[in-house]
């Protein structure tokens, strides 16, 4: 999977490494912006209020 990704990326090794860093950054941004907040709403809420 990751070996295939490495082969698909163009250029010499340092260009591929740079592209991987950029891709990882984009993935992280997408996770933090959309995926994590979406997943979060299905987890047990932490109730901070007092009530009956």
């Amino acid at each position, binding site marked *: *999977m*990751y*070996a*295939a990704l490495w082969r698909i990326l163009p250029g010499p090794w340092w260009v591929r490494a740079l592209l991987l860093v950029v891709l990882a950054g984009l993935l*992280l941004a997408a*996770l*933090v912006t959309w995926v*994590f907040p979406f*997943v*979060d*709403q299905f987890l*047990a*809420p*932490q*109730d*901070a*209020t*007092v*009530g*009956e």
Partner: protein
Amino acid sequence: MTEPGQSDAAPSVAPAPLRPRRQRISVVGILGELLITAGVLVLLFLGWQLWLNDIIVGNEANHESLEQTKEWDRAAPPPPADVDPGDPPVSTAPAVGQRFAFVIIPRFGADYYRPIAEGVSTKTVLNKGGQFGHYPSTQMPGAVGNFAVAAHRTTYGASLGQIAELRVGDHIFIETQDGWYQYDFRNLEYVRPTGVGVLNPVPQLAGIAPEDRLLTMTSCNPKLSAAERIIAYSVFDKFYPRDPDKPGSGAPDEIAATVAGEAS
């Protein structure tokens, strides 16, 4: 002069370099990579939920609070000359979900600046923007009785993450359109999640006419649990009216940098 046997032999040699590639693409290999990826994603999520998101939300809350206080500064008329710092103005409660005040606690850092909205729904108020929620059954800031609010101890901005670090006499400022209500921290209390007595005008006593102006903050205890609630009581000390003609709009010196946005 090529014999059929030789021509067969040549292609049989050519695919040989492909063999290592074929070995890399195996079901077990891909499964392993997927499992590692899933593990990394879970760790990233935990890092986001327990650490990164609190920083992001805290910065957003600080930014939005600064915008609102500037807007209030522009709209504020000079206060009447006879404002008694011990008997402050009390506004009426807004609609549920609407922001009406901000919390500034110097003990929690100079850039600590969090909004308060009406209502204590976990999903629609407390989970949004590091907000505090005001218990609608309790009084408003500065009123005789109990101004009670709730906020998360962990995650969603963790606005009360440091609640147990408050020390007697620490100043807690509630900012509204009218100005800054200074409360002085008194003590902590630990109750069951059903301990609604902390919301009474005189906490834990029913049917007693209040004389003091109190601030009650509730959060969960222990951290990352919903087993108990931690309660922080503070008592009203002094009111600083918002005055656009004064330096810092009349905010006390202790929080001038926070309100001016020079503390981040």
